């Protein structure tokens, strides 16, 4: 017999929501108020430890770490939204198209896709930076484009599964057009896969931003970014691990938050997961 067990609201959804909420609130608050000007260089306050005035202390230029973390949250969200947005908005329809198009065309699209997949994301971002000028937006569009293949692959395999179901056969024999089938049946049923992939890609984007900033192709100084904070901390890693720990923990919170949120959303909005044998 079939046991219908309604999933109790999964804790991962709520924890994820809490962590992502923390990042969002921090970013929004930074528009209104920060304890110090995050870009103010003050030689007199160099490398101060955590205290009442400077919650997380200051860096080697005397800038307030806490203020930098707050403003850096904006960069992080911006980075994630742009990169994941570009990847999901191009990759998902592409994958669905490849699944529904005639076989030879679908195969062709996927082989081109594989070519892009083989191209290192960071290299693409550096090329983009060299051609269009190095800034956060360019870097993240490049990271987004480099992530298109993962979305396309996932969307295609999901869509192939949906296309072989009887409800799609039923829709076809009812006279539904291909576009209607894609929008009404395929997309809603692969949404869970895309959401999970988005949370993974978000994490990759945040880490790529850090790496690119490190290489000088990401966020340009003086705009604060968690990635650049990490990069700047490395020469003092042995003496002042705090400088790496603060942005490191911030990145970890954001990445973990989005991953948990992705898992939680998938579980919550998949009606089939409610019925388990």
């Amino acid at each position, binding site marked *: *017999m*079939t*046991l*219908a*067990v309604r999933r109790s609201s999964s804790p991962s959804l709520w924890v994820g929501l809490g962590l992502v909420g923390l990042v969002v609130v921090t970013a929004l608050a930074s528009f209104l108020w920060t304890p110090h000007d995050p870009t103010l260089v003050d030689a007199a306050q160099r490398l101060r430890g955590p205290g009442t005035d400077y919650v997380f202390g200051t860096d080697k230029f005397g800038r307030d770490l806490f203020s930098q973390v707050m403003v850096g949250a904006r960069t992080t969200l911006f980075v994630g939204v742009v990169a994941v947005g570009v990847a999901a908005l191009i990759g998902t329809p592409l994958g669905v198209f490849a699944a529904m198009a005639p076989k030879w065309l679908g195969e062709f699209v996927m082989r081109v896709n594989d070519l892009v997949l083989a191209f290192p994301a960071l290299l693409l971002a550096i090329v983009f930076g060299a051609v269009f000028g190095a800034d956060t937006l360019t870097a993240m569009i490049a990271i987004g484009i480099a992530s298109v293949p993962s979305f396309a692959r996932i969307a295609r395999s999901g869509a192939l599964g949906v296309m072989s179901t009887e409800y799609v056969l039923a829709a076809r024999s009812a006279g539904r057009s291909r576009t209607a089938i894609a929008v009404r049946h395929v997309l809603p049923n692969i949404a869970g896969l895309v959401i999970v992939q988005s949370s993974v890609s978000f994490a990759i984007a945040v880490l790529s931003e850090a790496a690119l900033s490190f290489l000088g192709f990401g966020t340009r100084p003086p705009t604060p970014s968690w990635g650049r904070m990490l990069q700047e901390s490395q020469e003092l890693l042995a003496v002042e691990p705090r400088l790496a720990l603060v942005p490191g923990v911030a990145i970890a919170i954001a990445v973990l938050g989005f991953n948990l949120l992705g898992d939680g959303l998938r579980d919550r909005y998949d009606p089939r997961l409610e019925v388990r044998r």
Partner: protein
Amino acid sequence: MSALTVDSLELSVAGIPLVTGVSFTVGAGERVGLIGESGSGKSLTATAVMGLLPDEVDAAGSVRLSDVDHDLVGATEKQLARVRGRRMAMVFQEPMSALNPSMRVGDQVAEIMLIHGTRPDKATARAAAVELLGQVRLPEPAETARAYPHQLSGGQRQRVMLAIALANDPAVLICDEPTTALDVTVQARMLELIRTATEERGTALLFITHDLAVVAQTCERVLVMYGGRLVETGSVKEVFTAPKHPYTRGLLDASDLEAVDEHGRLRTIPGAVPGAGEFPGGCVFRNRCTDATGDCAEAPVLSEVDDRGFACWNPVGGPA
């Protein structure tokens, strides 16, 4: 002495009763069919007997095997692991998902013997596995033993499952809809095989299905389950030719495609099986029963005389 004794089994999830007061025995070498529709609790009962209940199901009552000195309800996983596959084995509905796709089938049969130490070493177990594959009438057993599950047909995979189940000569074999996923001509041969294999070994068989004809073909005794209760028990011949419970009567009528009413329509049981926890109090069948009276607000007890019993206040054909 019964090979399997189930006594007052109660199963529930989050306070919703799914199986209520189920008691029955299966004698050594006896073949008993457990019949019910979706939602009757038949598969859950089988799962409980095997000690494979999901965590969220609460169990009470008793399940005992003749050669095991402890109750299986409330037994530890370690105790159960020693019993499962050794004293008692199960054949599931889906032969593909029940086999490990990356392991040769001969090794899978041998493994179950090595786990329980019924064969001293690998070589002996492998030889025994090939012999077993032959006994379940797989062609060229030595060849088949080296095959992977995907290289076999559905019917052949189900034979492998049966070989695994019989490997340690268990006292009790439970089959849960073992032929539902198979083609009809394959199904017929599989049923025949299950019957002869248990007969030869004197294995007690508990056969779970929704198909009355399959039970009539395979079993000697039958238990009819509805709404988590046993509503009728007895020999296949008596229950199927002179049913006492209106539900059994309804099932028999609905399966008979040769008997139609004046409009050429099949006879049916009115309404649908209620969802879990939505069965009426008293007799669980009374909201669909055409013979229900005021008495039925009180739950009838299944009283058995010589293995023949029914739980109904107004049995078909009057009180016997």
